[in-house]
């Protein structure tokens, strides 16, 4: 636990140095910010015991970047098309991730998928709003969930 806290504090220190620079006058503010950030992160995001695979994380990052490009292009095409081709609606997705942090990580990741915005849960299913309900939304979400499980939650 102490090791986890120290490693997170080190990450926040790096982030501070990158964003604010290294100025001796900033030390009190930096120390307070790093302590607060570390405490909050340990409270909200408990250290996971699941096995992580660097390769699978790399694949998830690549998939994420690819989806960002597809999603942005898709929205731009629909917005600029004079006919405004939208078939908006809701799609329920039955996830196998446990509720709480894992599900929240998944919804945050999938809010950047092409054509889907998570809008909360109903009866244990995630409810997504889609720009075009005729797209294979559920299959894409399942693929994303599989990639996330391989990367972070392979227990």
């Amino acid at each position, binding site marked *: 636990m102490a090791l986890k806290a120290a490693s997170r504090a080190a990450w926040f220190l790096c982030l501070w140095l*990158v964003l604010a620079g290294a100025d001796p006058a900033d030390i009190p503010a930096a120390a307070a910010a790093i302590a607060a950030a570390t405490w909050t992160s340990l409270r909200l995001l408990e250290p996971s015991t699941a096995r992580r695979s660097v390769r699978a994380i790399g694949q998830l990052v690549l998939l994420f970047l690819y989806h960002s490009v597809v999603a942005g292009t898709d929205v731009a095409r629909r917005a600029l098309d004079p006919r405004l081709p939208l078939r908006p609606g809701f799609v329920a997705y039955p996830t196998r991730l446990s509720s709480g942090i894992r599900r929240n990580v998944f919804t945050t990741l999938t809010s950047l998928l092409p054509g889907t*915005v998570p809008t909360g849960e109903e009866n244990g299913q995630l409810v997504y709003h889609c720009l075009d309900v005729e797209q294979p939304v559920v299959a894409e979400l399942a693929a994303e969930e599989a990639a996330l499980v391989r990367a972070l939650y392979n227990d």
Partner: protein
Amino acid sequence: MSLLGDIITIVAVSAGAFFFLAGTVGLLRFPDTLTRLHALTKADNLGLGLVVLGLLPQAASLRDGFKLVSIWLLGLLAGATVSQLIARAARQGESAR
């Protein structure tokens, strides 16, 4: 090398500006809150990513480069989390009506 960097900058920043423009057009043209959220989160995240990518060759130091990437990541995180909160509120408001 600097010519190549300048070309990357011009291409990527122009593409980024295009996606910001498209996202704004979507914000104005899409019919309701939820569809507008799609336009803003998706197009603007890609736009910001491309602008950051385009500015990287112009970064004066490694730290400036990391700073640009951090700004993109923080923007992504903020967009991805806040859009869910707005979407949740919008759906609940819709079903309450």
